[in-house]
């Protein structure tokens, strides 16, 4: 059993390694275009809501705590505590997606979603001394939606995994001898948290004070 658990954990880490490459490519695209079209990226970054971004970071860190405590509860066979912690994790996860949805809806109302109604006249108006290229600004918002969208997709998958874990916990499947699903489900959840730990500074923070 011990060896099986180690094999499963290692398998999850190999999968997370491929995920690092998957997100890494998109982070690289963001960093390269930020160098190339700095004005549009900095003003675009200043237009997204830092308060909602910070709240979402806090929500995800809280969910990581409930997951870490949940793995421990599973390990010690505490069924009721585990069920409560999984439900709390699901609430935090759904809360994150809800706040993300509010943020996206704001962008939609501001015509900042790339597409036919894309319009950055409000951003241009806020920075009259810097001529902005709407095409380059679309690139910023395309990467913003691709990165946050891909992350949100991982959150939705994570919620699916934790619903399955809730079912298994309800059935009393976990105990000191067997809690591998909770352990590797937790690894996945923490990984998605780490992706956000990097997305948050890159998208929201680093260009906040640099007025092009």
């Amino acid at each position, binding site marked *: 059993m011990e060896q099986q658990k180690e094999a499963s954990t*290692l398998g999850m880490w190999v999968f997370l390694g491929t995920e*690092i490459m998957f997100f890494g490519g998109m982070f690289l695209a963001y960093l390269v275009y930020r160098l190339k079209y700095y004005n549009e990226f900095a003003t675009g970054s200043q237009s997204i809501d830092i308060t909602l971004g910070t709240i979402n970071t806090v929500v995800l860190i809280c969910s990581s705590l409930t997951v870490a405590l949940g793995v421990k509860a599973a390990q010690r066979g505490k069924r009721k505590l585990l069920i409560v912690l999984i439900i709390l994790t699901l609430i935090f996860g759904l809360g994150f997606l809800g706040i993300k949805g509010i943020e996206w809806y704001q962008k939609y109302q501001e015509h900042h979603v790339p597409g036919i109604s894309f319009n950055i006249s409000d951003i241009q108006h806020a920075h009259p001394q810097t001529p902005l290229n709407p095409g380059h600004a679309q690139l910023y918002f395309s990467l913003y939606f691709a990165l946050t969208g891909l992350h949100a997709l991982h959150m939705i998958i994570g919620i699916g995994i934790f619903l399955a874990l809730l079912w298994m916990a309800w059935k009393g499947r976990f105990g000191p001898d067997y809690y591998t699903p909770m352990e590797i489900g937790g690894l996945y959840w923490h990984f998605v948290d780490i992706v956000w*730990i990097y997305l948050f500074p890159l998208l929201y923070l*680093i260009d906040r004070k640099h007025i092009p």
Partner: protein
Amino acid sequence: MSEHIIPSRIYYMIWVTLMVFTVITAAVAFVDLGPFNTVVALIIATFKATLVVLFFMHVKYTSEKMTKTVIICAIFWLGLLLILSLADFATRASG
């Protein structure tokens, strides 16, 4: 199973540290440090990510060397991708 059980106190301490550094990094974003805004934000993010990996993901407590090898390799490849590509793009004469 002789699995190491980590005291909950450690998880709470890590959680508090992560929260404190989230507030610090958000506050620093409003101070103009020039290019160091990026440096400080990424150092704090890396510190937070390291805490999550070591404690929440139990890497500090695992005896499995293959897991650590996989993690180090993944970070190494990511480093190659980012550092070599950015070294290229950042040093081009014309954008």
